[in-house]
Every structure is written in C-alpha cells, then in structure tokens.
C-alpha cells in the first residue's frame, strides 16, 4: 500500500471516529439528563409551588411563566422582526442605510445574553421602576429574538422565486398585496423554522431573565399579571443550585433539566412534522 493510500485510510478512520464521538457525546448527555430527571417528574412536581427552605417544592409557577414569557416575547418580536426582514428583502435599496441596518442586525445578534439582561435591567427594572416583572423579561427576551427573526425572514423571502412576484404584479397587485398574499405564504416554512429556533432559545434562557424577570414567583398561581415576578424553569435551575437553600436542590434541578430537554425535544419533532407536510404540499 502506498503512503498516500495509508494516509487516506488513517484519515478516514479518524474522521469516522470524530463523527461517532459527536453522536456519543450527545447520547451521553441525554441519557444523563433524562435518566436523572425523568423519575422526578410527576403531577405534583409540575403543578405545585416552590418552597423557599423546605424540600418537596414544585415548579408549577415557573412552568407557567416560561411559556407565558416566551409567548409574550414572540408576540412582541415577531411583527418587528418579520417586518424588518421583509423590508430588507423587498424594499431596501443598496446603500448606506441598508448597510447600517444589516450591520446593526449582526451586531445585535452578537450581544452576549448577559449584556442584554443588564440592558433590560437598566431600562425596565430600574429606569421604568417596574422591578422584576414578566413584562420586563418578555421585552428583554424579544431583543434576543429580533436579529434571528430578521435574518431568517430575509432569507426566506429572498428565496421565493422571482416568477411569483412578477406574476402577481403582472396581474395588477400592489407591492404589499404581493407580499401579503403570495410571498409571505411561500416564505412561511422558513420563517416558522426561525420561530422554532427562537422559541427554543427563549425557553432555555437564563442570563437575560435573571435581571429582568427575577428569581421569584408571584404568590398567586397562575398569575397572568404582567407585573408579577417571573422566574422561569431555566432560571429556577440556576437559582436552586446557586442559593443552595433548599435541601433537595439536586432533585429539583434534575427534574427541571429533564423537563426543559423534553420540551425542546418535543418542540423539534412537533414542528418538524407540519413543516414537512407543508413543504411537500407546496412543492411541485
């Protein structure tokens, strides 16, 4: 066997090893998290309130807050993000302003989440005097969502074939009608993928919410008030391991971790199926 052939064989073996290693690491993680945490999850755990000092608390309010804040942040960031994305794809002319907006989007995307959290603290907690609230958390979280939504929307809209636009305009439709009725529906799968991405990140976010939604929950459960304190599942894991006040911190952390991972898994699969169906229905 020539030296070159030998090198080829070794390289191929190493590359296979890398691929398998990556899969093994993931499997190990999932097994560990789910193995430790799934047994903790029962109805009681999922619905009862946390205890400050004693064992046996649950994560009911945090579960509620997680979805509440995520949904709110999407509500806020979706229109602006998709709007900006459409603007960039359809209206923006090459020039200084467009370059500035693009740079801004990339810059916003690169801001570390803790900095976003501190910004949110300056603005909402201190500046507006709200203290730690669901509203503050949702607003800060939407800052995280924004750049991703802009980029994903722009890409999805650009990917729509030019022929669709021409056909619509040729029939006498205005620009906005073309966008609303032809382009957006076609770009929807791409945008939805972005929404999944964003929602997934939001659900697992801690650094932002610690400084805007806080590490406590409201006394009432469920409390839909926007001004209530809004500790989420992810923040709870961190808080419980940092404070160390509750004796069963490990149990709570393990269970909550497993729950979060489960939610992410379900999310991934849940949205993959309808996307697949939508795509196959609309492609020729």
């Amino acid at each position, binding site marked *: 066997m020539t030296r070159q052939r030998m090198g080829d064989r070794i390289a191929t073996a190493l590359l296979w090893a890398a*691929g398998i290693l990556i899969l093994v690491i993931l499997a190990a993680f999932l097994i*560990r998290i789910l193995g430790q945490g799934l047994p903790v999850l029962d109805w009681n755990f999922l619905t009862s309130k946390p205890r400050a000092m004693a064992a046996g608390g649950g994560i009911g309010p945090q579960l509620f807050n997680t979805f509440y804040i995520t949904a709110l942040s999407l509500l806020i960031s979706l229109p602006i993000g998709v709007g900006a994305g459409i603007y960039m794809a359809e209206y923006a002319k090459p020039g200084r302003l467009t370059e500035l907006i693009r740079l801004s989007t990339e810059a916003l995307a*690169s801001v570390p989440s803790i900095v976003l959290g501190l910004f949110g603290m300056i603005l909402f907690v201190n500046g507006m005097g709200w203290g730690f609230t669901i509203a503050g958390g949702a607003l800060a979280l939407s800052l995280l969502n924004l750049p991703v939504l802009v980029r994903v929307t722009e890409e999805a809209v650009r990917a729509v074939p030019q022929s669709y636009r021409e056909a619509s305009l040729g029939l006498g439709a205005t620009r906005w009608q073309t966008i609303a009725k032809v382009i957006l529906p076609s770009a929807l799968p791409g945008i939805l993928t972005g929404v999944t991405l964003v929602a997934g990140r939001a659900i697992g976010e801690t650094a932002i919410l610690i400084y805007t939604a806080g590490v406590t929950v409201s006394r009432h459960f469920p409390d839909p008030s926007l001004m209530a304190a809004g500790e989420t599942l992810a923040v709870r894991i961190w808080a419980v391991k940092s404070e160390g006040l509750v004796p069963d911190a490990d149990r709570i952390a393990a269970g909550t971790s497993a729950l979060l991972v489960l939610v992410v898994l379900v999310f991934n699969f849940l949205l993959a199926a309808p996307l697949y169906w939508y795509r196959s229905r609309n492609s020729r």
Partner: protein
Amino acid sequence: MNRARFSDRIALYLLTFSAITVSLVIAAILVFVGKEGLLTFLDVNPIEFFFSPDWNPPAGRFGALPFFVGSVAATAIALLIGAPLGLAGAIFMAKISPGSMRTAMRQASNLFVGIPSVVYGYIGMTTLVPWVRDNLGGQGFGVLVAGVILAIMVLPTILGVSEDAIRSVDVALEEGSLGLGATRWQTIWGVILPAARPRILAGVILAFARAFGETTAVQMVIGNSPTVVRSLTAGTSTLTSQIIMEMGQTPPGSPWNRALFMMAFGLLVVSLIMILLVRWVSNRGVAK
C-alpha cells in the same frame, strides 16, 4: 388613493420603521451599558482595572485582570477542543458519511443547540467537575471543565458553518484533484479545505464570540474565585461569571456596580469586534 395603494403606503412606513428599530436598539444598548460602565473610571484607575489581579471591591480594589484572563483561557480551551472536532465532524458529514449518518448528525446538532445553557452547566457541575477532581486532581472547577462544556456548546456552530463551507466548494475543483490521481483525503486536505477556509474561519470566530459571551454554563463550573488562572483545575472566574455572581449584591450607581457594567461593556466590545472580524474574513475570501 384607493385602499390598496393606501395600505401599500402604510406597509412601507411600518416596515421601514421595523428595520430602523433594530438599529435603534443596538445603539441604545451601546449607549446605556457603555455609560454605566465608563462611569467606573470616575473612581477607578483604568490601569488598575485592566491590569491588576487584585479584585476586592469592599476594600476598594478593582482589578479585573483575573476575569479577562479567565474568559480568554476558557474560550481558548473551548476552541482548541471544539474547532478540530467540529471541523473533522463537518468533513465527515460532507464527504464521508453515509446519508443516514449525516441526517443523524444534523439532528444531533439541532438537539445540542436546543439544550439550554443552564442544563449544560448543571451537568458539568454534577458530572464533569467531580470526575475531573477525582481523576485529574485539583478542585475540579476551573477553565478545563469550562472549556470542555463550551466546546460542546459551540460544536453545532462550527459543524454547521464548516459543513456548509465544504459543500459549497465547486465540485470541479474536486474532480480536478481526483483526476490527477489524488486520494480522497489528499483532495480534502489539499484543495477543498483551503478553498473553504474563509468561511470555516468565519465560523470559528463566531464560535469564539459565543463562547466568550456565555454566562450561565460557565458560572456553574468555573469555581467563582476571583483569582487569575493558576491551573486547569483551579477555581477562577470569567467576565461573565463574575458579573452574574456579584451583580445582585451591588447597589446601583456604586463603583462596584459600575465596574461590573464596565466588564459587561468589555464583553460587548469584544463581541462587536468579533463580528467585524467575521465580515472582514468573509469578504477577503470572496474577493480571492
């Protein structure tokens, strides 16, 4: 103006407004965080802040050097582990693996991304730290475990960007190399990787920025000791972990509080420099 044209007009205004909002937001962040941070230097000497290893705010010592060093060390270890592994994985996915494995790895990458950073921190804290302590000595906490966890967290970024870059290398180049009698690996190493280098580099820089700015996972495994890195397994601190540890206990407007904000501003500046670097590297590649 009929209704259609009217809504067209409104749409234009709203969309433009949305786009400008993004710029306003980032500007606001720079201004607010920067202001709070820079006010530190009313009370603290910048030389002390950036170069002194002595951090003891209650005693008036504001040396943030340990945190800069810690951040750089953890991130460097993360890249040392994650970049080769990610690149190898990407080459494997793009050129060698059978289709089923490629799909499996893509799904794996998506799942990696989906796991919240706090869960990474939790696993690191409860599994890796004890293991390191028992087998490698030291405290277990420190930049080694932080680096490993960060490596896993940035793996999907490197995998994704590198795989894309490799796939978009013109197949004519590959055929040219194979036609000369090169083996597959020779072709990958000699032609494909060099051609994909700008984009792979951009991906690595992106990964650096993510690792540098990661807070929760790092804080749970770094040991939270404001001392400069002494060894791979000695407790230390990073910019991000120190901020999250102490921010809650500092009164707003105090030098301590402002110093933490200055650290946050430092993080922001580093991240912005990174994306400028990414742009520069990408443009250089395209021009060639």
